[in-house]
């Protein structure tokens, strides 16, 4: 198990904000000193543009950047040339939708998603559907908050060309049986695109075992800097993928009329990459691997179970999401008829940072029958005491708003 209280010491934000209970890591995690310093150190010692230099500094920068690629490959159980650096999961999913979709999708084709997708795995497909004439269908989830597997089986047809799903819901915490569903979808000939934005930071992931073609993640949710994420693609899937962004570094030969393109992963990294950010992300992956992703997952799970147990004490608290092993450290809730925004402000006044709103998952909330929710999410630096503070703040808020609920 992790010693979360000790780990807090690795994260300068806590020393600089005494008393802060940060419960919004599902939106973006805090950064350990190792990551912040990897970035400063790079700028102070080694910065130059990568790949194109013929001098020592540029070699060092290139080496550091490619080391980050290897670190991410190790983190995901992948090969370095399957790792494409992007800004975030959103860009990774858009890259897939544009590059694969504009080439392959036709009118009458279907894109199968789920009703628990984040907008990042929904809107890119809508933009594509509008251009291609393809149609979007979405697998509903049950009252417990799990994907409806019968509905999935019925909705997966020979018209299904893409199946996109999240590994873990950012609202319900549900961990989906990705490998199983992906295998069924690939058998039908569908491209499988997995949104790992919540999965990668919290679960031990071996992408090769997911039966997926593409896997998207955001570095800033896994202790890394903003501005860096990864699109992993199976080697064959990447090899067949046409370019997305055009520009320097992704080409072989350019004339005014046409160009030939470099092999993956370069083909998908047009222009000067987010070098320092990739390096920071590599440092974050190392930090997490040193903790052990199994331990991270167990820590999240233990905090979640403790939180669910304690939150049962609060009257009028509606909790969303399933109970069981297939649930990560995310708790979305509503308190009576109180709007989650007002609730979140009250918690904030007590030093407890939770998010409120639709969490970029409007269809999910529509299915839950609410417009919005408040959400607490846990990560390596959260302790039982943080849960305790949440509980106390919720009780106080309930007292404060008692006559209006």
């Amino acid at each position, binding site marked *: 198990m992790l010693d979360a209280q000790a780990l807090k010491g690795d994260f300068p934000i806590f020393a600089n904000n005494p008393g802060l209970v940060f419960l919004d890591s599902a939106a973006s995690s805090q950064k350990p000193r190792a990551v912040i310093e990897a970035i400063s150190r790079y700028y102070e010692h080694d910065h130059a543009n990568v790949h194109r230099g013929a001098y020592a500094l540029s070699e060092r920068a290139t080496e550091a950047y490619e080391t980050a690629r290897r670190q991410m490959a190790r983190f995901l159980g992948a090969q370095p040339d399957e790792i494409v650096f992007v800004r975030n999961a959103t860009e990774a999913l858009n890259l897939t939708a544009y590059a694969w979709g504009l080439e392959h999708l036709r009118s009458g084709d279907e894109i199968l998603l789920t009703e628990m997708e984040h907008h990042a795995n929904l809107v890119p497909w809508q933009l594509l559907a509008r251009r291609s004439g393809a149609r979007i269908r979405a697998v509903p989830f049950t009252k417990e908050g799990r994907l409806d597997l019968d509905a999935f089986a019925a909705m997966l047809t020979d018209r299904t060309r893409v199946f996109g799903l999240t590994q873990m819901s950012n609202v319900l915490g549900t961990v989906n049986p990705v490998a199983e569903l992906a295998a069924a979808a690939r058998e039908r000939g569908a491209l499988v695109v997995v949104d790992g934005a919540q999965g990668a930071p919290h679960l031990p992931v071996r992408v090769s075992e997911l039966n997926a073609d593409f896997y998207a993640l955001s570095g800033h949710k896994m202790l890394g800097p903003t501005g860096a994420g990864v699109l992993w693609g199976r080697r064959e899937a990447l090899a067949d993928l046409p370019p997305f962004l055009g520009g320097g570094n992704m080409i072989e030969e350019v004339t005014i009329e046409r160009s030939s393109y470099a092999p993956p992963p370069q083909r998908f990294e047009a222009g000067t990459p987010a070098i320092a950010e990739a390096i920071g992300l590599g440092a974050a992956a190392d930090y997490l691997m040193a903790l052990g992703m199994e331990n991270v997952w167990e820590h999240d799970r233990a905090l979640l179970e403790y939180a669910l147990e304690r939150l049962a004490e609060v009257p009028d608290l509606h909790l969303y999401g399933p109970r069981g092993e297939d649930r990560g450290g995310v708790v979305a809730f509503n308190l009576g008829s109180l*709007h*989650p*925004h*007002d609730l979140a*402000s*009250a918690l904030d*006044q007590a030093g407890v940072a939770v998010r*409120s*709103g*639709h969490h970029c998952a*409007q269809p999910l*909330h529509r299915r839950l029958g609410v*417009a*919005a929710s408040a959400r607490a999410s846990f990560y390596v630096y959260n302790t039982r005491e943080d849960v305790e503070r949440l509980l106390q703040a919720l009780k106080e808020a309930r007292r*404060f*708003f008692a*006559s*209006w609920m």
Partner: protein
Amino acid sequence: MSLLEELYRETIMIHAQKPHNFGALANPTVESRGHNTSCGDMITIYLQSDGERIADVSFQGQGCAISQSSASMMTDLVKGRSFSEARELIKKFKEMVVEGKEAAPELGDLRALAGVSKLHSRVKCATLAWNALEQALVEAQNK
């Protein structure tokens, strides 16, 4: 008084629970929508007008206590006013909640929302209806 107490006064909570002028007008001259992209809250302003005076105004939508009470009190306040008076009130209200300036007396009950200026993330909640009204005035004038 804590910031919470300062913000969630009785006036505000009563308006939030039973907002005035709630619901669509039958034949609005213009309808204008406001979105709070940070939380998904949404409001529609219905305006009945000859392009110079607000004959009637109402709103619909859902949101937090701050946005609902703000819309409720706003519609009370601007009903029957000329466009230029309404614009002046919009300006005064924004000065109060965005810039934290002292509350203008003509804002009446809305002065209870002055505390919002100290809670930046809620400023958008308080101004949601006002931005939609501002938009509605432009549209009504161009009709």
